[in-house]
């Protein structure tokens, strides 16, 4: 047996013992995810146990170095682990912006001290992070942000407002873009980390058309932040921000089909009486299965370091547009049943609310228009893009 075969056999055996059966059942919705953090209440013993054993091995972040709480796996091993997890239908032990967004940015731009301080907490799911990027006046034009961060000698003083902060009301810490200089648009931005319990931080959930409030407005009123919590250097946060955005898009594109994964929509819907709808669903399934193939290919490219840096934009664009189409079709198949907004029959209007929720997919994390512009500029190299 090669080393890799040995690793596979051992991993399989270990998972067999350590992955609780409940954690092998498909997630019914996003609500089943484990986010961790100081305020987290585990939904079951199985959920707690699965996080603990995986974190213990560093397998919440299998390819991070062991020193920072990771598994220290080689890319090939990491792939084997993914395959084995997929084979038993294991749920992700931890869903976290710390893992998918901040972690990669810290690994690349953080100081040694920052890595040792923040990464292990992320790996163990002890601190839940949120992202302070967008502002009311700066949506797609992210670099236009105005949240002011002044150097007060022994600390930073932050004043301003963020918007679209996902789960800010449930997060422990924030990674935040702030303006440390007005002299240059992109060159006056810094990337700052701080505790959401710092005095002067407040959040206000935003009610969405779906009736859910996954986002907040977040206000900073004379928030004091220690000096060593800037990542990547003062006024050099834009590079960190962009790097992190790529990872965010990878994550979003990975979620592309939401809870659907590679399951055929037509199978999910059961008998489709309307032949016209059936045709549309089949056309959708063609696109969705093709996109799933692309996602696998992209992930392999990524892990092999061969992915074009703008590819996440392409994936994010295609995946989110597909997901919107998916939910349009689910609504069409559900007919007037799915139009019920808060009946028990629809579990409180779940189909319609999820459908409306997907409309944000092509806006959050950079609009579809922004992604197409990035593809045009960085992949096609069109002039003036």
């Amino acid at each position, binding site marked *: 047996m090669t080393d890799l075969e040995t690793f596979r056999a051992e991993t399989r055996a270990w998972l067999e013992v350590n992955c609780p059966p409940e954690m092998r059942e498909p997630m019914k919705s996003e609500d089943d995810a484990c986010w961790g953090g100081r305020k987290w209440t585990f939904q079951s013993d199985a959920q707690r146990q699965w996080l603990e054993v995986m974190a213990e091995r560093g397998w919440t972040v299998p390819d991070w170095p062991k020193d920072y709480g990771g598994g220290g796996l080689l890319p090939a091993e990491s792939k084997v682990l993914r395959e084995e997890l997929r084979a038993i239908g294991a749920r992700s032990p931890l869903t976290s912006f710390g893992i998918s967004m901040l972690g990669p940015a810290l690994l690349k731009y953080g100081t040694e001290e920052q890595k040792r301080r923040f990464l292990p907490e992320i790996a163990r799911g002890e601190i839940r992070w949120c992202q302070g990027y*967008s502002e009311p006046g700066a*949506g*797609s*034009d992210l670099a*236009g942000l105005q949240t002011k961060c002044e150097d007060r000698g022994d600390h930073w003083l932050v004043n301003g407002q963020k*918007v*679209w902060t996902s789960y800010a009301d449930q997060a422990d810490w924030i990674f935040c873009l702030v303006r440390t200089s007005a002299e240059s648009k992109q060159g006056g931005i810094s990337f700052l980390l701080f505790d959401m319990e710092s005095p002067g931080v407040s959040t206000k959930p*935003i*009610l*969405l*058309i779906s*009736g859910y409030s996954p986002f907040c407005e977040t206000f900073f009123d004379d928030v004091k932040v220690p000096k060593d919590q800037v990542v990547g250097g003062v006024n050099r946060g834009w590079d960190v921000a962009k790097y992190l955005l790529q990872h965010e898009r990878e994550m979003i594109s990975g979620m592309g089909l939401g809870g659907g994964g590679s399951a055929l929509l037509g199978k999910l819907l059961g008998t489709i*009486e*309307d*032949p*016209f*709808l059936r045709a549309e669903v089949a056309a959708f399934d063609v696109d969705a299965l093709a996109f799933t193939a692309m996602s696998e290919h992209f992930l392999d490219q990524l892990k092999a370091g061969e992915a074009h840096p703008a590819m996440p934009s392409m994936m994010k664009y295609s995946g989110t547009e597909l997901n*919107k189409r998916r939910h349009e079709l689910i*609504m*069409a198949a*559900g*007919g*007037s*049943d*799915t*139009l*019920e*907004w*808060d*009946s028990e029959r629809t579990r409180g*209007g779940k189909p*319609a609310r999820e459908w*409306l929720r997907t*409309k*944000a997919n*092509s*806006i*959050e994390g950079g*609009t*579809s*228009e922004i992604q*197409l512009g990035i593809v045009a500029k960085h992949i096609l190299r069109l002039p003036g893009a």
Partner: protein
Amino acid sequence: MTLLTDDQKQLQDMARTFLGEEGTIKQQLRHWRDTGCKDGFGHGLWKQFAELGLTGVAIPEDQGGLGLGATEAALVLEEIGRNLTPSPFLTTAVAAAKGLEGTGQGERWFPGILAGDTVAALAIDEGKHHAPEQVALEARRQGNGFVLNGAKQFVVHGASADLVLVVARTGGSPGEREGVTLFAVERGASGLDVENVTLTDSSKAARLTFHDVAVDADAVVGEVDGGWTPLSRALAAGRAGSAAELVGVAAGASDMTVDYLKARKQFGRLIGEFQALQHRAAHLHSEIEIARAAAWKAAELLDRDAPQAELMVYVAKAKAARSASLAVQEGVQMHGGIGMTDEHDIGLYMKREAVLGSLWGDWRYHARQVAELSGY
């Protein structure tokens, strides 16, 4: 038609002023939604419809109405759509009124409708998809009348309705047009179970269950076993009307979006300067104009009782639903984050389109009728 007469322009102006002042999103839709109104609309506004004569738009002059037609109804409904005004106008003054016309039931029901006192609803669908031929709700003869057993859903305004036009089967089998009978069932009929359901757009529809609901023989609208005739008339008027309302929804969403494109700045420019958005907005505009022409054409043919009316009603509803769907999706997307918030009105257009687009058949249903009617 294809061009409005002066009278029609006047009616359009009147409806535009009335609904633009009294029927706004803030005063009506949001108000009734946020106060949790069980009807989902305001009876005061419905009274105003009556005072302006609008409740009688489709009712013959000799029965006290304006004696106008589908075209005039379409003009009013476009303004209703534009303002997302919740009201029983479409079900009562358009669909039900046409269903009752010439059946002898007018005398009983038109005065209440004209006065803005009566709300009417249509109870057709029994499953999640519109399929009127599939009606299975049983109406069994008993004595001088009938006993109804079965269930209905997606009965818009069903819980507020004084009159429910119930499509039942007195003969034949599900799938057949023969053997269908239309009954006028009054509010509070014994054995009638009403579940008031809130829909995505905050409007109300009911699920009705009939447990041995007894009705007199004179509750029959039209002929026994011949209910397909008044039902078709009601559906044609209702579908043409919903097409016009959808055009209003589309135009309202599109106008709001174009305004936003002229106001919102990103990257130091108005986003309306970005060519990709310009082209999409121009395409959308074209689609809405075409949908309106189709809706008007359908109304004109209905008013002329022309044989092509049936086909064009299918076309109009399908086209209007597709255009409105495009309008609300482009509208929300072009508004960006703010478009996702409950606070902004654009999302309300998306919700309304979903309900209205499905009512009495979604666009696929109507496209399928085009194919079937044309024999391919």
